[in-house]
């Protein structure tokens, strides 16, 4: 009997597994004839290769001598040349790590500001009751749709009158004022899913609202905060328009400005070094992407954030 039951149990398990798979991916999971499946993979691989080719070409070009770059379509350098990185690093006023550090300063403060101010606002919207909450929430969602250029001129005037031009303050301070509605929305969505009993228990234990927020809710929001941090990192690291507007002093340039300056001054003759610095500038994004894929993809699926 036992022998007979065992396979049956296995079969049941298998069936259950299959059903689970079907649930995970609607329509028919992993079905189709092998030929069909193969052709699907082939198409996806070809499209994927076309997607990655420009990036791979950039990386490979950064290791080729400048003269070879446009003569070879192939990705594998015939003559490896590491001097591109050395040359590119020192081609501008300052060595390239100065610009990396500049960008890092802006990025770190932006992340801290965004997480803290947006989490505070989200907690109020998601878990507190007060007059005007709904109205404020609607207003917050309204700013989500407002094109930034409408505010541009007056904000520039304010910053220049505060004497903030040629400092990082115009790039950092707005992040401490929860001006990025996307992240508030993301955290509101996340906090609403946490059980209300947590707040009640904390209250009974004598926690005030701020302690409840800091000790109970915030630690549970780590995934939402990670998403915010990664997205803030990527968008701030890439940001070109703000620094272009507010930073004139070359020593204060962030990475995108430095790259553009590079193109203006040397780009025509020094392909190799320029591509090398391009690789340096996007490497952190790719690194963060690999480390935080799960959060990124869930984050974008939640809010439609770019």
């Amino acid at each position, binding site marked *: 009997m036992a022998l007979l039951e065992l396979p049956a149990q296995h079969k049941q398990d298998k069936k259950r597994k299959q059903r689970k798979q079907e649930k995970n*991916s609607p329509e028919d999971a992993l079905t189709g004839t092998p030929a069909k499946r193969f052709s699907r993979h082939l198409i996806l691989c070809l499209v*994927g290769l076309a997607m*990655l080719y420009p990036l791979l070409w950039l990386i490979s070009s950064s290791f080729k001598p400048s003269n070879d770059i446009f003569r070879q379509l192939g990705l594998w350098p015939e003559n490896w040349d590491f001097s591109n990185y050395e040359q590119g690093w020192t081609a501008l006023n300052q060595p390239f790590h100065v610009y990396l550090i500049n960008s890092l300063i802006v990025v770190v403060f932006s992340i801290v500001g965004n997480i803290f101010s947006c989490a505070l606002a989200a907690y109020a919207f998601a878990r507190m009751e007060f007059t005007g909450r709904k109205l404020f929430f609607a207003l917050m969602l*309204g700013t989500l749709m407002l094109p930034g250029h409408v505010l541009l001129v*007056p904000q520039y005037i304010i910053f220049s009158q505060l004497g903030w031009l040629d400092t990082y303050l115009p790039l950092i301070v707005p992040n401490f004022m929860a001006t990025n509605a996307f992240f508030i929305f993301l955290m509101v*969505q996340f906090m609403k899913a946490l059980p209300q009993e947590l707040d009640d228990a904390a209250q009974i234990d004598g926690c005030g609202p701020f302690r409840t927020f800091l000790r109970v809710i915030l630690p549970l929001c780590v995934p939402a905060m990670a998403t915010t941090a990664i997205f803030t990192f990527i968008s701030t690291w890439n940001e070109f328009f703000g620094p272009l507007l507010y930073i004139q002093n070359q020593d204060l340039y962030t990475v995108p400005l430095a790259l*553009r300056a590079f193109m203006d001054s040397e780009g025509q003759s020094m392909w190799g070094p320029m591509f090398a610095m391009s690789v340096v500038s996007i490497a952190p994004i790719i690194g963060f992407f690999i480390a935080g894929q799960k959060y*990124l993809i869930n984050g974008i699926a939640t809010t*439609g954030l770019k």
Partner: protein
Amino acid sequence: MSVLTKQAPGAAAALATAGGGKPRRGSSRRTNQRSGYLFLLPWFLGMLFTIIPFFASLYLAFTDYNLFTEPNFVGLANFQAMFEDPRLLQSLKVTFVYTFVSVPISLAVALLIALVLNRGLQGLAIYRSVYYLPSLLGGSVAIVMLWRYIFGNDGIVNGFLGIFGIQGPAWVTDPEFALSTLIVLNVWTFGSPMVIFLAGLRQVPSMYYEAASIDGASRWRQFRSITLPLISPIIFFNLIMQLIGSFQTFTQGYVMSGGTGGPADSTLFYNLYLYQKGFTEFEMGYASAMAWLLLMIIAIFTAINFIASKFWVFYDN
């Protein structure tokens, strides 16, 4: 704009994977007025920083402000001047062509790939990541510069065409082709709408398809009658977000043309021209008027979308 604020987040919320629960009301919610406002304090400051510039910008749109002397009220003069400004009309044309070509193509590609990926293929995570990565990089200066060289005269695109004996055009320096390279760049970043489509497709209950295949409905029929209506709110959401993003393109045009919008103004995006007017010619009043025209254009397109959506967007509840 008010319609927008009500509906689009609804569409986003439908996608929510992190959310789920409805807000709980009643006794258990904290009802402490003062601490609610205290938590919102940074946000209130931020709103001051949004609302004051919002109205200031509206006022400046009717002045000739140049940053150095007091603004004079000039009525509708800025708006009148806009319609006689050939560069402004050109920048509108560039932005519209860019938007109306690249947004539909990238949404179609995103949906198509999402449908294929949703078939439960092995290696889904890898494909998804590979397709998504470009959309994180698309706006960076490095990639736009790279694009400039890929499509350059001796770039790899023409090198590739040369294999087949085709003499490719001077993509970057020919006014007829310069914008199309940026359209290709924008389509290349289809990954972010694709991820949203994938999340939406996951939420279509599989029993609908089971029932349909029992009834003998073909694949195409199932797609048209089940998938399409059920993900229409997501298509709509993606459409709105891509439109708004595309109308605001700046970096691509700036870097590609070295700040000029050339050749022959063929990559003079609206926001690039706004930047030139405001921050190289210091016509802040004119730039503000331009910003308001853009706001109105976006609002009109969004409104049209919302009205049209009544006929094709299907809400389950």
